[in-house]
């Protein structure tokens, strides 16, 4: 068979439809300040940050097999870097988001070296311990309020934009931009040579190794990249909240338990999973939040039902039945006529 006789296609009909719908959605969302009220903008901004967090955790755990329960370490780290940069060094908050990402990547290098010595469940426990250490350290930083936390000074906030409405728009667009950047970046990564390796690792590590993939190197890379992304998201989250404390910044509940819930019910190991999962999570939260602790019980029940009846998550459930995929990630072999 000669070179000219074959062609490899990435997009399918399903992914063309998916990409078109997603592009329209992003355009509509970018224009949201025109059609949504302030409360909705704030809610959507929060949704975008969870899309980013869950997509990153999915890359880490769903693809690279690194089941971390300590990503709140980087959420909190990012938040604290933003506050420290703004309060102590006068760095504009938007620039501080980037600084948070860069510093988290640097920090992740030695942390990963330590964590990767731990196997299996010990890795998960180790990541949680690291996050707790981060929390304890943050509580010791007097200039940032110690254990009780600190607020962002008014001057820093007004520095973003003069009017309150414009500030809220900018923060909304930042959140949307970050979610698009994270999801788009992951799609591009999966389209690349690294994506081929990551998907292989997701499916079978032994075979991946035996077929020439440097599994440890790729896991290391993914750990560092997700740390950076998670910290940038954390910085943005706490820029929206205007206040940070060790307990909110390093909350295992908010930044890891909910994120795992989102990824697992949406469909772990697929790019679409966290998107679907985030929508489901916020639908549940907005309708059930009044129920108090019953709400957490309901989340648990939903998680159990999904895991029993759709172990590949809601997206996996429909995608496998109808051959759907929203992103052009396949390498389809086609013979030229």
């Amino acid at each position, binding site marked *: *068979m*000669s*070179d000219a*006789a*074959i062609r*490899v296609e990435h997009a399918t009909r399903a992914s063309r439809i998916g990409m078109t719908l997603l592009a329209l959605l992003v355009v509509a969302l970018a224009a949201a300040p025109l059609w949504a009220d302030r409360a909705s903008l704030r809610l959507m901004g929060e949704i975008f940050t969870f899309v980013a967090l869950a997509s990153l955790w999915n890359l880490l755990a769903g693809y690279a097999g690194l089941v971390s329960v300590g990503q709140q370490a980087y959420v909190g780290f990012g938040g604290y870097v933003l506050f420290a940069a703004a309060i102590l060094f006068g760095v504009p908050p938007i620039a501080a988001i980037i600084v948070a990402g860069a510093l988290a990547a640097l920090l992740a290098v030695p942390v990963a070296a330590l964590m990767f010595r731990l196997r299996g469940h010990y890795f998960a426990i180790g990541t949680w311990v690291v996050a707790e250490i981060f929390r304890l350290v943050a509580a010791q930083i007097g200039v940032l309020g110690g254990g009780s936390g600190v607020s962002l000074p008014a001057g820093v906030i007004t520095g973003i934009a003069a009017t309150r409405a414009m500030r809220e728009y900018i923060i909304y667009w930042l959140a949307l931009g970050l979610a698009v950047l994270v999801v788009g970046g992951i799609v591009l990564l999966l389209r690349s*040579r690294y994506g*081929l*390796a990551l*998907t*292989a690792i*997701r*499916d*079978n590590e*032994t*075979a*991946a*190794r*035996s*077929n*020439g*993939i*440097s*599994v440890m190197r790729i896991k290391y890379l993914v750990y560092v990249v997700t740390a950076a992304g998670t910290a940038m998201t954390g910085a943005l989250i706490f820029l929206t909240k205007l206040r940070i404390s060790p307990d909110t910044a390093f909350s295992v509940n908010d930044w890891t338990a909910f994120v795992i819930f989102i990824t697992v019910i949406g469909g772990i*190991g697929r790019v679409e999973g966290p998107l679907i999962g985030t929508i489901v999570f916020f639908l549940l939260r907005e309708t059930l939040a009044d129920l108090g602790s019953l709400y957490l019980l309901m989340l648990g029940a939903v998680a159990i039902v999904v895991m029993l009846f759709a172990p590949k998550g809601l997206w996996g459930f429909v995608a496998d039945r109808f051959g759907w995929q929203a992103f052009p990630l*396949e*390498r*389809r*072999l086609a013979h030229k006529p």
Partner: protein
Amino acid sequence: MPTLLALEQISKRFGAVVVADQIDLALAPGEALGIIGPNGAGKTSLFGMATGTLSPDSGRVIFDGADITTLPPERRCRLGLARSFQIPQPFGGMTVFENVVVAAAFGTGARERDVYAPCADILDRCGLSQKANRPAGALTLLDRKRLELARALATKPRVLLLDEVAGGLTEHECTALVALIKDIRADGVSVIWIEHIVHALVSVVDRLVVLHGGRFIAQGEPHSVIKSAPVQEIYMGIPADA
């Protein structure tokens, strides 16, 4: 005679089970070697130690003159040591074609788009081209074994380790497989083949070794090894599927 792959004084035990007891094995360039032995003799474990998925308790693995005993599997693969797993290990969520592309791209270090054409070719040779775009997780056991072979070939091996690839094939399919393996040899690839389907094995290999109790109890020219007393003795009690 020069040696391409050698196991030197390899020992391995799992608790009380001795799977290798100071085994020496040398494979010459271009040679095809067959390994037989009863179930649980330690044949697959030998492949594990050769390719790095299992580490020996003692002894050395030498490839092309270099000591590779502590090299990880991915490095050994890139040096040219490929293996088909007895229990197939497909990338279940990827298509058959993507499985082979992974092996070709990472096993040889080539750019992804440069391996598309050779991979399509390999699928053809292994009888998988009709299933190129199916998810590998949905393949039958037989096709999974074909995929194991296809992936191993895609890494452009110098030594190909085949672990029971003929089991379950029809007579016709078995003949095709034997032809394919002879073809692969003709390209200069050295082969070690573990197989219970003895007639297929002896039609390909130059030399046959018999593993039992962690040792080679017979080795040499395939037909005479089959007829030798210890082999007849061991295989007496082995049921027909073996």
